[in-house]
């Protein structure tokens, strides 16, 4: 399958810094905020963003969780693909907190729908925002839009947009795998 790089490591680094600053702008010291990385790949983005925020606000305290939405998906028994669950680590209170969902690529919006149901198992947040690194435009199946976007990308439905995370951010990239359609 042919693939092409959409964002280089250097571009990715810039985007992450911008997203981190946007979070700081809206949530200041994060005292009433819970950052929630969506398993599996949103968790890596969560960790990258937290590293930047901690550097900018060394005295601040970030509360975060990792949420798996497998059991809340709406395609169980509807495709031949069986989804394997990942661990959920939600040792935080979300009741009356400002929750920010963090995921790498926003495509149909169905995972976010599942996450909105899943988060209610832990309480009723005051508000829920969505941060994504890549927003695949015009591909939504549900009325879900992100609040913070790294980059917007147009791709055909059969294409796959992937974030390749490396140990060093400079070596990471976002690439597109062209599908058959």
């Amino acid at each position: 399958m042919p693939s092409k790089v959409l964002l280089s490591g250097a571009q990715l680094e810039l985007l992450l810094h911008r997203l981190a600053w946007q979070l700081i702008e809206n949530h200041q010291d994060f005292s009433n905020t819970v950052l929630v990385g969506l398993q599996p790949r949103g968790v890596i983005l969560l960790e990258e963003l937290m590293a930047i925020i901690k550097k900018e606000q060394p005295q601040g305290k970030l509360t975060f969780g990792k949420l798996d939405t497998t059991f809340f998906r709406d395609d169980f028994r509807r495709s031949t693909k069986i989804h394997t669950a990942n661990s959920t680590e939600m040792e935080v209170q979300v009741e009356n907190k400002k929750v920010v969902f963090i995921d790498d690529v926003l495509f149909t919006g169905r995972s976010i729908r599942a996450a909105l149901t899943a988060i209610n198992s832990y309480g009723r947040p005051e508000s829920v925002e969505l941060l994504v690194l890549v927003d695949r435009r015009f591909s939504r199946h549900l009325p879900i839009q992100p609040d913070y976007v790294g980059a917007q990308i147009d791709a055909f439905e059969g294409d796959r947009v992937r974030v390749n995370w490396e140990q060093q951010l400079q070596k990471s990239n976002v690439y597109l795998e062209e599908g058959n359609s």
Partner: protein
Amino acid sequence: MKTLSVNHLLGIKQLTAEDLHLIFETADHFKEVINRPIKKVPSLRDITIANLFFENSTRTKLSFELAEKRLSADVINFSASQSSVKKGETLVDTVNNILAMKVDMVIMRHPKPGAAQFLSERVNACIINAGDGTHEHPSQALLDAYSLREKMGDLKGKRIAIVGDILHSRVALSNIFALQKLGAQVKLCAPKSLLPQYIESLGVEIETDLMKTLQWCDAVNMLRVQNERMEVKYFPSTREYAMLYGLTMEKLEQLRKEIIILHPGPINRGVEITSAVADSDQAIILDQVENGVAIRMAIIYLLAAKLNITAQ
């Protein structure tokens, strides 16, 4: 993406080691789910499950029912004592009538060995064996192995003893299969009269001395004496059995090592295990009950994933 190698859970014998690990990994996730403030996931909201209990049960029935409800399945319960079985209806007719009400899965306990296998060959639904006579009780063996794994880590090379009424125990047979598939060594300890003939052909060691068994093992599963299945006397008296095969604090103290103690319940306190042992820190009996719900959620979830909606 991983899936089970079977479409029904009839016994541990039919499962592979990979199946066991997949069930354990899935149960880990469900254990987290049942410790959330809201202990429910919507995965099985379009599945209906019938619990068919042709034999008495407290723990298994409640545990399965709770697992089904935590997965948002619709549940119907059936117990033979209040049913048309008493009027002479056959098993296949009873089940087919229940399936005509659009039931997707059947969880069955039956006094006859092989009943689950028999049913799976004759009706169009996913069957989970919740105990068939003296044959197998796969969900119990899975939760026992899962509880051991939680305490001891990988069971490879670990020494596990099963003590008590092996002859009438479905828990014993399922446990032997499960522990061996996970690489553990298994020793059975019972009076000769309560050991089935040819049981050594399964590759287990046999011992009749409880103290020697306890010295050898890392964990011991104490089975109940199943008086209800005994048509003749298998040992002179309950008191003698308790003296020779009952687990007491005195026996544990002589060991100079800590072993893990399991019991599938219901406990006959003072017979196979004293109250002091059953309530001690070494006993993980209540962990087994908690893990039972997570394990049964995993079994139901993984089998339900194979009921593809597009194939219906």
